[in-house]
């Protein structure tokens, strides 16, 4: 299959990934039903994780792996979870994407991988304190378009 990322983009990403610290596991949830972008998204993720040794990918199916999808709160395909990995332990940080991260959102994917690998949100201290003080669940859904 033709590659989605050309050499120029791969070398830019490799540079951005130079200081990746801790292992990151990307979980992909596809679906055989009505999913126009699942194949492209999976291929895109395969090409991205291949760029750095600290990144790895597991591929799942929304229907066949329904329990796992529920565990990671994935309900839309393609679904992507960007999780921390320590040894064999995968820790869900609540960082997800629904839909293909292409165009402008491709840089959000790269940025998310860098943040999770650094285990540092980069937020200011006051915001961190307020987030840590939350006692009720919060779901943030950021709607974006590729252009």
């Amino acid at each position, binding site marked *: 299959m033709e590659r989605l990322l050309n050499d120029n983009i791969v070398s830019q990403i490799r540079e951005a990934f130079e200081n990746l610290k801790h292992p990151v596991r990307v979980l992909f949830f596809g679906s055989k039903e009505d999913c126009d972008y699942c194949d492209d998204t999976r291929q895109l993720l395969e090409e991205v994780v291949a760029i750095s040794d600290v990144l790895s990918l597991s591929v799942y199916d929304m229907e066949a792996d329904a329990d796992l999808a529920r565990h990671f709160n994935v309900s839309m395909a393609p679904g992507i979870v960007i999780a921390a990995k320590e040894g064999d332990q995968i820790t869900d940080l609540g960082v997800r994407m629904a*839909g293909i991260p292409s165009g402008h959102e491709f840089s959000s994917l790269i940025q998310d991988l860098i943040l999770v690998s650094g285990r540092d949100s980069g937020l200011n201290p006051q*915001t961190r304190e*307020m987030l840590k003080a939350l006692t009720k669940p*919060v779901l943030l*859904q950021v*709607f974006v378009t590729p252009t």
Partner: protein
Amino acid sequence: MAMESDMVQAEMVEAMEFHDLSNRYGVSGVPHTVVNDGKGNVIGAVPETNLMAEIQRAVTR
């Protein structure tokens, strides 16, 4: 923000692919952040303090 609290989940949603969901929340421009199924909304790219304030409003509603 999700990284800082077990209470927080953050999901980036491709609005064109999931247009039923974007319609439900009245998304017409991006980025548009929906907090807790519509209890809060932030339109545009805003400083983290603004988003944090909207989160706090949404959880007390």
